[in-house]
C-alpha cells in the first residue's frame, strides 16, 4: 500500500556485506495485545537483522507497523492475514536515528543568534526553524528521523530547544518535549557570530557589540543571570542588566528543575567552570559537545554527568575555527567503559560528518557496535525525554525506521529506505517523498 513499488532490497546489497560477529538472538519483544487483532493493512518488514535499538537484535527479524506506530518487532511473530510483507532480504533494520543536539534546520546559519541579549531562555528555537530547509532531506538521507534542535552557542544562555521529525507532513513534525535550555561556556559565546553583530563590522567582537569578551565574562553573565532570577523570584526585584521578567521566570524554572539545563563546553577548563557554576545554584545538567571529555573523564565519572558528545569533525566545517582542540578519537569508547551516560551528536554536520559517520568513527576507535547504535538511537531519545516515543523498535513507539543496505555505520553502507510514522520519506529509489513531507 504505502510502499507501492515493492522492490527487493537485495539488489542494493553487496554479497557478504552482512557478515557479522555473533549477536545474541533474543526472544521476541512481548507483542502488544493488539497484535492479535491486527488489521490487514499492517505493514510488515522482514530483514536479515532487526536491531531494536536497546541492544536487542533479531536475526532474521520482523517489524510490524500499523497506523504510524510499531506494533511489534521480533524473530517470528503472528502475522495478520493478507498483511503487506516487504522482504528486505539481506538488509538491516534499525530505529530511525536520533540526534539530541542538532544545529541544523534554522533558517540561516546564524538565524538563531539573538543580538538583543545574552540570556534568552524565554525564547523558543521552534520560531527559528525552517521545516522546508534542505537540511532535513540531508538528515533523512543519513537515516536521522528525530532531532532535538538545540540552542545557539552565541548566547551565554540560549533559547529553549525544540524537537522535530525530519520528514513527514509539516503539521506533524513537531514533537513535544520537556523544555531544555543550553548555556555556553568558553570563548564561543563571545567569539561566535562576530560577523553577525554590528557595529563591530571592522573587527572582532568588542564591548560595543557584545559584553562577554573572555571566559570570565561568559561565566559572569551566567552567574549574574541566575542571581537576578533568584532576586526576581524571591523579591520581585527587576534585573539591573535589563533581563526581561520572562527570561528570569524561565531561569527560575531551571532552578526549580522544571526546565532541564545543558552546558556546552569544549575545552577541559570549561568542564570545571561549568561544575563550579552549577554547584553555586544547585543545578544538575547535561554536557553538550564536550570536546575534551577524555581529559575530564574523572570529573564526569565522579559527578555522573551525562554527555552528548561530538561531533568529531570529519570534514571542514563553518564552526571548525571554534574547535580549540580535536577530541580524542576514542572518547566514545572511554565514556562507555567508564559508565558515563552518553550519546553521540553530529551537531551541524550531515553527510560525511553526519550521525552515522559519528557512530562509524566511534566504532573505528573502539566503541562496541551495539553500544554505538544505542548512542544514536535510544540513548539520545532518553536524553531529551523521548524514550517512550522514539529511538527503539518497541510496541507503541513511532514507526520510524531505517533500512540499511549493509551493516549500519559501515563506510560502504547507507540507508536505502527511511520511514517516519510508517511512511517512506526516503524511498528505495533514493528519492525524498514530498507527498509525505
Amino acid at each position: 500500500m504505502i510502499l507501492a513499488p515493492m522492490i527487493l532490497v537485495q539488489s542494493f546489497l553487496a554479497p557478504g556485506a552482512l557478515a557479522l560477529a555473533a549477536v545474541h538472538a533474543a526472544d521476541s519483544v512481548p507483542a502488544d495485545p493488539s497484535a492479535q487483532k491486527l488489521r490487514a493493512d499492517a505493514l510488515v518488514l522482514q530483514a536479515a537483522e532487526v536491531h531494536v535499538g536497546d541492544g536487542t537484535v533479531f536475526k532474521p527479524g520482523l517489524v510490524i507497523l500499523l497506523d504510524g506506530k510499531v506494533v511489534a518487532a521480533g524473530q517470528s511473530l503472528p502475522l495478520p492475514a493478507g498483511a503487506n510483507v516487504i522482504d528486505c532480504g539481506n538488509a538491516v533494520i534499525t530505529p530511525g536515528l536520533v540526534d539530541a543536539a542538532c544545529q541544523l534546520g534554522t533558517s540561516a546559519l546564524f538565524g538563531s543568534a539573538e543580538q538583543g541579549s545574552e540570556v534568552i531562555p524565554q525564547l523558543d528555537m521552534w520560531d527559528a526553524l525552517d521545516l522546508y530547509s534542505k537540511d532535513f532531506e540531508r538528515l533523512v538521507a543519513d537515516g536521522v528521523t528525530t532531532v532535538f534542535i538545540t540552542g545557539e552557542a552565541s548566547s551565554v544562555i540560549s533559547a529553549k530547544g525544540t524537537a522535530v521529525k525530519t520528514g513527514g507532513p509539516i503539521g506533524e513534525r513537531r514533537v513535544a518535549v520537556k523544555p531544555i535550555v543550553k548555556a555556553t561556556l568558553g570563548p564561543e559565546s563571545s567569539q561566535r557570530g562576530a560577523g553577525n553583530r554590528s557595529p563591530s563590522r571592522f573587527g572582532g567582537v568588542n564591548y560595543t557589540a557584545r559584553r562577554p569578551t573572555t571566559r570570565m565574562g561568559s561565566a559572569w553573565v551566567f552567574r549574574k543571570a541566575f542571581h537576578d532570577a533568584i532576586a526576581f523570584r524571591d523579591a520581585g526585584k527587576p534585573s539591573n542588566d535589563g533581563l526581561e521578567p520572562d527570561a528570569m521566570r524561565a531561569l527560575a524554572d531551571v532552578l526549580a528543575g522544571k526546565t532541564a539545563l545543558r552546558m556546552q563546553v569544549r575545552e577541559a577548563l570549561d568542564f570545571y567552570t561549568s561544575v563550579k557554576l552549577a554547584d553555586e545554584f544547585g543545578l544538575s545538567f547535561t554536557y553538550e559537545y564536550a570536546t575534551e571529555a577524555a581529559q575530564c573523564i574523572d570529573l564526569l565519572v565522579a559527578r555522573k554527568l551525562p554527555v552528548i558528545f561530538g561531533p568529531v569533525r570529519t570534514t571542514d566545517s563553518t564552526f571548525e575555527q571554534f574547535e580549540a582542540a580535536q577530541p580524542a578519537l576514542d572518547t566514545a569508547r572511554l565514556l562507555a567503559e567508564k559508565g558515563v551516560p552518553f550519546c553521540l551528536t553530529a551537531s551541524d554536520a550531515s553527510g560525511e560528518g553526519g550521525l552515522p559517520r559519528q557512530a562509524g568513527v566511534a566504532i573505528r576507535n573502539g566503541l562496541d557496535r551495539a553500544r554505538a547504535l544505542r548512542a544514536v538511537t535510544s540513548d539520545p531519545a532518553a536524553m531529551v525525554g523521548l524514550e517512550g516515543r522514539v529511538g527503539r523498535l518497541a510496541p507503541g513507539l513511532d514507526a520510524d525506521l531505517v533500512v540499511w543496505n549493509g551493516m549500519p555505520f559501515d563506510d560502504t553502507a547507507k540507508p536505502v529506505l527511511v520511514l517516519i510514522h510508517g511512511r517512506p520519506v526516503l524511498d528505495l529509489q533514493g528519492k525524498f517523498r514530498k507527498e509525505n513531507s
Partner: protein
Amino acid sequence: MVLSSLLAASLLAATTALGDSAAVRGGTILQPDGTRIEKGIVVIEDGKVTAVGGPETPIPAAATVLEADGKVVFPGMILAHTQVGLDIPNENMPIAPFVNVYDSIEPNSAEYEECLRTGITTVHAIQGNNTVIGGLSRIIRPQGDMVEYMTVRPDYALKISITPRNGFNRMTQLAELRRAFADLKAHVDAVAERRYEEEQKKKEEKVLVLPDEAAKQGLAHVTIDDLDARWRTLWRASKGEIPLFVHCDRAMDVSNGIAWLREAKLLEKAVFVVGTEAHKAAGALKQAGRPVILSGALVHKETDPLTGKESEVFVPKVFADAGLPFVLQPNGFAFNADGLLWYQAARCVREGVARDVALKSVTQWAADAIGMGDTLGSIAPGKWGNVAILSGDPLDQATVVEKLLLEGRLAYDRATDRRLKELATGQELAAPSAEAAPTAAPAAPAAPAAPATEPPAAPPAGGGSGSGK
C-alpha cells in the same frame, strides 16, 4: 651530472637492496581487481616481489617472515597528486617552471608519518594549483630524513593550471600560458641562431641565411645547457619529455585544457587534475583518454541558477558509469576517517561504484597516473615490495594498518607507533626514546656511508639530474 646520477642510484639502492628478503605469510592477499589468495605468501627479495601465491609458495630460508594470519595483505596505496609534506606549496610567480618541489619537501613532516600509518607507500609531491605553470614535482617514498633518500623519481612532472590562479581570469590565464611557450620559443630561437653562427664560424663559413632560417638550422645544435636555466624545464616539457599535471577545476577548464594541449601537441603527456564540477566533462575526458585525478571532495553541490534547485552529484559514480578510470585523493589530511585514502574508496562503494573500481582508484590507477603502473599498484612478481598488512578489509571502517613494508623493509609497525596513542586517546606521552620511535633504525632508510652532515649529493638543477637525462 654523471657522478650525481650514479650517487642517486646508489642511494636508492641503499634504501632497498639490503641483500635480505622478506616474506608475508598467512594473510588474505587482496589485489585491486578483487582477486584474493587465502593464506597467501608474498616473497620480497631485494625490494621487489619475487613470488605471490598460496600456502605452498616456497619461502627463501634467509627471509624474515612476517606472520599475517587473519590479516589482509594489500598493495601500498599511492597519492598520485598531493601537497602533503610540502612547505608553502604554491609559488607566487605565475610562470615558474624553474622551481623544484625538492626545495619544499619537509622530510620530517608528520604528514609523511601519517602516510605510513594510513597505508600510503608512494607520494607524488607536486606544487599546488594556484599557478599558471608550476615547478617540477617528485615521486617520493614517505620516509627518510633527506629528500634524496626519499626520492623514487626526481623531477617527474610539471603542474599547469587551466583554472585561473588568484587574481587572473580565464582569458589572462590562457594568454599567460601561451605567452610562456611563445617566450620559450623566442629564447630557443635566439640561442639556435647563435649556435648556427657558431657552427658556421667553426667551419669557417659565412652566415648566409636570414635569422629565421639560422634559428631553424641551429636548433639541432642546441643542447639544454645552452639555454637560460629558467627555460630548461619548459623546453623539455614542450618537447614532450615531462608529464604535465593539468589542473582543470571546472568542466569549461577541461575543454580549454584539452584544446590547449592539442594545440601544443602535449595531450599525450597530460594527466588531468579535476574539480568536482568537471564531472560534466566526463565525456571529453574519456575521449582524451588520459588519467584523471579527482579532488578530495567527492560530492558536487550546485544550486541551479535558474530554478534555485539544489543538487548533489557523487562525482566518482559519474566517472565509473562513463567507464573512465579515476584516481582518488584523501579529503584533507587528518587522522580521522575522512583523511583516509581507503575511506574515499569505501564512500565510492557506498554510492554504488563497483568494489574493484574503488580499490583500483587508490592503487593501480594511481600508479598508472604517475607512470609507474608496471612498478607499483598491485602485488605481483617484478613489482616493488610495497605491501600493507591490514587488520581487515581495506574498505572496513575499523581496519588499521598493522605493518607496512616499503620495498621489502618494515617501514611502519603499529605496535611501536609512539604518536598513535596520543592521536587516538589524547594522552600525553613520555619523551620519545630512540627505541620506541615508530620509524626507528631498522625501519628508516639505511643511512648512506657518507656522514649525514655532507650536503645532498644531487642538487636537482632545472635540467634535472634524474630520469629525463
